[in-house]
C-alpha cells in the first residue's frame, strides 16, 4: 500500500522534509489542503526560474481520506525541493555531458 510520487531534482538548493508515523489516524471531516511552491532568481542581466518539486510517500493512507474511518499504522513522508535553473551551474547534468 506504499505509494511514491516524488521526483526531486538532483542536488536541490533547498530541501524541506517531514515524516509522520501514527498508530492510528482518524479524520472527523474531509480535510482541504493546498500546497504551492514558487521561486525565482534575478540577476542584473538574466533571470532564472526555480525548479520546485514536492511529493509524499504514504503507507496505509489513501489519497482521498474518508471521514470517520480509522486508519492504522499510518506513515506519511512529505518532501519539497527547490533548485535554481541555470545552465552554467557546475553540477548541471547537461553541462557535465558537454
Amino acid at each position, binding site marked *: 500500500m506504499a505509494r511514491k510520487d516524488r521526483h526531486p531534482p538532483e542536488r*536541490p538548493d533547498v530541501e*524541506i522534509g517531514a*515524516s509522520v508515523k501514527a498508530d492510528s489516524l482518524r479524520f472527523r471531516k474531509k480535510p482541504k489542503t493546498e500546497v504551492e511552491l*514558487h521561486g525565482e532568481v534575478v540577476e*542584473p542581466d538574466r533571470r532564472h526560474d526555480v525548479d520546485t518539486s514536492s511529493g509524499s510517500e504514504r503507507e496505509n493512507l489513501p489519497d482521498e481520506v474518508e471521514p470517520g474511518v480509522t486508519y492504522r499504522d499510518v506513515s506519511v513522508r512529505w518532501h519539497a525541493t527547490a533548485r535554481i535553473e541555470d545552465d552554467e551551474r557546475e553540477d548541471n547534468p547537461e553541462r557535465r555531458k558537454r
Partner: protein
Amino acid sequence: MMAATKSKSKSKPGAGRRASEKTEKYRFAQNLEGQGTAAEREYRDYALEDSDSRGEPDVLLDVPVVKVDSIHLEVDDLDAHVELRAKVLDLVKLNAGVDVHLGKLRLDIKGVEAQALLKVRLDHVAAIVDRVLTTLDRNPELVKSLGRTVEQVGQGAGHALDETGGAVEEIGEGAGDAVQDVGSGAGQAVGDIGEGAGQAVGDIGEGAGQAVGDVGQGAGQAVGEVGEGAGQAVGDIGEGAGETLGELEQVVSGTLQSGGDVGGSTGDIAKLATKIVAQQLMGAAAEEARELGLAATRKALEVGERRRQRRADELNATEAALRKAEELEVDIEGVEGSGPEGRITIRDVREAAEA
C-alpha cells in the same frame, strides 16, 4: 520500609537499562530514541540518502524524532508560509518558498512519531554572486549605471574593488544582524509556545534566543573581518547567507507555530511534548545559526580565494605578490615583473613600494 522502596524501584518501567533498551511505552512517554521504530529507520534512511548522493548541506535544521501519545487537532483556515530569501545589494535577488493552506481540519491521531528536516546548499548562490562580481570587475562601467545601489556600494571610490571593500563592512554587520534576528525570532517563537505550554518554555526561549544572538554577533564579526582582510567583495556572500539566515527565522517560527497549535488543543502529554519540541528546536536553531555563520564565512573565504587567484592570473602576478601589494597599498598594475615570463613577485612589489 526499605524493602518497599527497593521494590518500588525495581518495578519502575525500564529502570537500570539504557534508553534504547527500555520499553517502547517508556521511551514514548520520555521521548527517547529507540533501536529502530519505523520513524527512526526512515530518518536514518533519509539522512543516508542525502550524504550519499547529494552532498552535505551548508545548513541543516534537524528535528530528529518527536513522539506524542495522542493529538486531537482542530484547524480552521491555517495558512503557513515558508520562504528562503537571499539578496546581494540590489544586484541579485533569490527567493524560494512554500505556501500551505489548510481548510477545516478535525483530526484524532494516536501514537505519533514525527520528524522534520530543512537543508540549504549555498554553493550555487555563491557561484551566482561570484559571477556578478566578476562581471562588475571586468565591466566597471556597469557600476556607474546601477544608480543608487552603486552609490551605496562605493561612495567616493573610483575602483570596483574599493567599492566592494566598502560594502564588505556593511555585509559583516548585515550578517550579524541577520543571525541576531534568527536568535530573537526563535526566542520569540519559543516564547509563544511557552504561553501555551508553560512559563518554563518561555524562559528557555529567552535564554536560547540570547545565545543565538551572541552567536550572530560572532558570525557577523567573522564575516566582517574576512571582508576587511580580503579587501574584495567576498563578504557579499555573507549578506546573502545572512539574509537567508534571517529567513530561517520564518521557518523556525512557522514550525513552532504548528507546535503551539498542537500543544494548545491537547492535554498534559501534548504540552510536555510541546516543551520537548521547543527545546529541540531551540537547540537546533542555535546550532544552525552557529553553523550558518561558519558556512557564510567559509563561502566568503572560498570565493575570495578564487577571485584573488583569477586576478593574480590576469595580472601575471603571484597571489602572494597580490596580497603584499594590497598590504603595502601599491598599484600592482604599475609594477614590472622580474619572475619567470615577467611574473610579478613579492620582491617586485616590495621594491616598487620602496621606490
